[in-house]
């Protein structure tokens, strides 16, 4: 009988001691934090998933309060969470655009030079580790890591070039994350079609010519003709999609026309004009990867 009372008593004492110590510590070690951080923390789902790009919800909350990032980056919390955060921060949410992937490469197998037979594992991640698979070390490899990453059958390798099917794409960003050469980025589609720089080669024009028939040569024609909308950075045009206005594209259209390599393209859902123009055409057969491989084409290629 004694043992029950002693055991109970000890648990009680332990509980009281711990409670007192923790309570004391809570007061003694109190860190003054912005009350908004706590409010934001309370509004976040607390999944610590890292989807926003920060390590945990706490870091994201701090970044939001510090103004380093917009309050709509929590994918788990979604719209309601973004609204709550915006309310706490006293800001209004910007109109958000659907983000869709674009491929910053425009070269099919025919356009790429310096390609050699590659017999290794048929994935971009491994092929990217090997030198000499193809001349261009920036562009699409065409082994389809993005195709396998897509759960929506919305991206395919057509003639060696990853191509997005915008009818099926939901903008999850899986392809952009998997691409070992980082040539897929998520772009806010402010209209049905967006201007995209479809090349990633940062080399000088001469070197680009040596490895690709269609690559951007960094001639700066777009910079001159678009009134500064395009900016050449490391031999590639860069454009700021925040400033992109779909209703005021005149300057951009001039630059698109002037591009000698035709690397500035409107990419996105087909317009009605396009559909009308291609109505009578037969869809070409999908071109399969032309690499001779010793491994069969089953799912398990290991």
């Amino acid at each position, binding site marked *: 009988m*004694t043992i029950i009372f002693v055991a109970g008593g000890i648990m009680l004492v332990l509980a009281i001691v*711990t409670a007192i110590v923790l309570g004391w*510590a809570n007061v003694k*070690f109190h860190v003054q934090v912005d009350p908004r951080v706590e409010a934001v923390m309370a509004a976040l789902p607390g999944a610590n998933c890292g989807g926003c790009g920060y390590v945990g919800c*706490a870091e994201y909350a701090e970044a939001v309060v510090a103004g380093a990032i917009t309050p709509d980056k929590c994918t788990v919390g979604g719209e309601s969470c973004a609204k709550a955060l915006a309310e706490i921060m006293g800001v209004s949410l910007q109109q958000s655009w659907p983000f869709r992937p674009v491929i910053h490469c425009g070269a099919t197998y025919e356009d790429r030079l310096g390609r050699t037979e590659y017999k290794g594992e048929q994935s971009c991640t491994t092929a990217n580790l090997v030198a000499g698979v193809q001349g261009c070390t920036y562009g699409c490899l065409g082994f389809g890591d993005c195709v396998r990453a897509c759960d929506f059958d919305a991206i395919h390798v057509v003639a060696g070039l990853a191509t997005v099917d915008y009818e099926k794409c939901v903008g999850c960003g899986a392809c952009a994350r998997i691409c070992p050469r980082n040539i897929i980025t998520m772009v806010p589609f402010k209209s049905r079609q967006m201007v995209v720089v479809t090349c990633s080669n940062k080399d000088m024009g001469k070197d680009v010519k040596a490895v690709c028939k269609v690559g951007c040569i960094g001639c700066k024609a777009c910079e001159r003709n678009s009134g500064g909308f395009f900016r050449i950075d490391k031999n590639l045009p860069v454009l700021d999609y925040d400033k992109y206005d779909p209703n005021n594209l005149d300057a951009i259209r001039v630059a698109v026309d002037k591009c000698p390599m035709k690397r500035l393209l409107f990419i996105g859902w087909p317009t009605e004009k396009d559909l009308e123009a291609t109505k009578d055409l037969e869809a070409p057969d999908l071109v399969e990867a032309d690499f001779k491989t010793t491994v069969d084409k089953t799912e398990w290629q290991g």
Partner: protein
Amino acid sequence: MDYLFEMLVLALTWALINNFVLHYFVGICPFIGVSRRVDMAFGMGCAVTFVITIAALLSWLITYYVLRAGAPLTTLLSGGKTLDLSILNYTVYIFVIAGSVQFLEMYIRKFFRPLYKAFGVFLPLITTNCAILFACLEIMKHVCAINDPLGGLVPSLVLAAFGGIGFMIAIVIMAGIREELDHCDVPKSLRGAGITLITAGILALAFMGFTGVDRGLQQLLQDKEQVAESAAAPAGQNN
């Protein structure tokens, strides 16, 4: 010196041979969950080592003075009777671990801001880490045994700290393997936790190779002592 060697063998035993993860299969959840990248795995390993040592200190104090049969505090409370309160072990240890992690988090947050940032989400996650509870129970086993030389405070702390380091070794090795594994074409059904567990099993097999190293080391040290003694004896006679 003898004592120091014993501690060295104990440390080696718990870091490599009786590895928490690869020998006892405790702490599997962080081992699978946080072993995707080496730097994160290292952070987790550090945090576990840190918390496990603190928890071992507290649980040793409680076990020694309260829980074990004939503990001074319990005897005092029950009016001179010898009671065995080790039945309370799980409750008390979980309680102590959770409390100390909470306390540590507050303390670190106040005084070691960069460390708190580095530990990030790991510290609260460790509260429910079974490796720590396992270390506490293992220490209790030695403390409650009669005349166990490993029941002292120092051996317990060595056990816990090097158990934590063993966990760190295991999780960092695993993270290194998994970083390489990203380049491999794993069958779809095995991706993620599946291949990781298989890899962990093979890793555990490899760690089995350490079995017996502790006994061999002890033997070696004993032999050395005997040689030293026999060498010292004639020298003493000559003088």
